[in-house]
């Protein structure tokens, strides 16, 4: 492309072409869904097993993996940010959405004792918000179906004891994070979109 004068028609064509080129090329975020999906699945199943079938004093021990998950996510996010050649508003919104949800989830868990550890239904509700908005932003339906699963499971979880809530949590992350995460990864690999 050169620095030459153009006609109004050419101008309009050029604007359209360039806007089309800048249109969001989706960042592969499957890593985060898979990372958190596996952490939550293992932690919730371990919690259920230890709490139901053993006398182990700390059935929630598996949840300490979330600290590692937080650190890995922060490092990976910072690296992605550094290597990116174009910053989109969608990526920015996406980052803030999950950061806010993370803060909300942390607040609920941190104060869990006050609400008698009835935290799972709330976490499921928040996870549903994250997946439905992410799905809408990427126009990726499996994440939105995952959100519906999170919300239905949340309604059920409100009526279950803590240990069984963990099974619902495990099911929720399998359907809401892991399944869409693997589908996203596969799509990006085979279509590059």
């Amino acid at each position: 492309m050169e620095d030459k004068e153009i006609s109004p028609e050419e101008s309009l064509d050029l604007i359209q072409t360039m806007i089309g080129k800048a249109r969001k090329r989706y960042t592969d975020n499957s890593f985060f869904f898979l990372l958190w999906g596996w952490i939550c699945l293992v932690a919730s199943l371990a919690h259920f097993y230890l709490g139901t079938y053993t006398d182990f004093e700390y059935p929630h021990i598996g949840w300490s993996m979330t600290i590692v998950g937080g650190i890995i996510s922060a490092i990976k996010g910072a690296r992605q940010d550094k290597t990116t050649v174009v910053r989109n508003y969608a990526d920015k919104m996406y980052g803030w959405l999950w950061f806010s949800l993370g803060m909300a989830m942390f607040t609920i868990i941190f104060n869990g004792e006050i609400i008698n550890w009835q935290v799972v239904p709330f976490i499921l509700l928040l996870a549903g918000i994250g997946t439905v908005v992410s799905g809408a932003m990427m126009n990726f339906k499996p994440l939105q179906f995952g959100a519906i699963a999170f919300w239905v499971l949340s309604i059920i979880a409100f009526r279950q004891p803590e240990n069984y809530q963990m099974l619902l949590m495990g099911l929720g992350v399998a359907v809401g994070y892991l399944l869409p995460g693997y589908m996203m990864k596969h799509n990006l690999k085979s279509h590059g979109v």
Partner: protein
Amino acid sequence: MAFKALDPLLHSQLRLAVMSLLISVESADFVYIKEQTGATAGNLSVQLDKLSTAGYIDVNKHFEGKKPKTTCKVTQAGLDAFESYVKSIQQYLKP
């Protein structure tokens, strides 16, 4: 109705391409703009300077490790100029 004069700074192929690209994103790297416009580095540099001097874009030059990096971002003045340029073009194209 009299025709509005087209902003000479935007009515040029490469500068218009850069502005059209930048209004759609939050910020973009020099390498990305070069790739998308197909311009040469030298020419792109000159045109970015012109847009920056006019206050249409913010050019941020910094180092990332040992690598120099140039990031461009459209300013409010740039957005306004782009909007009024598109309006003027529409006037020209009206039957």
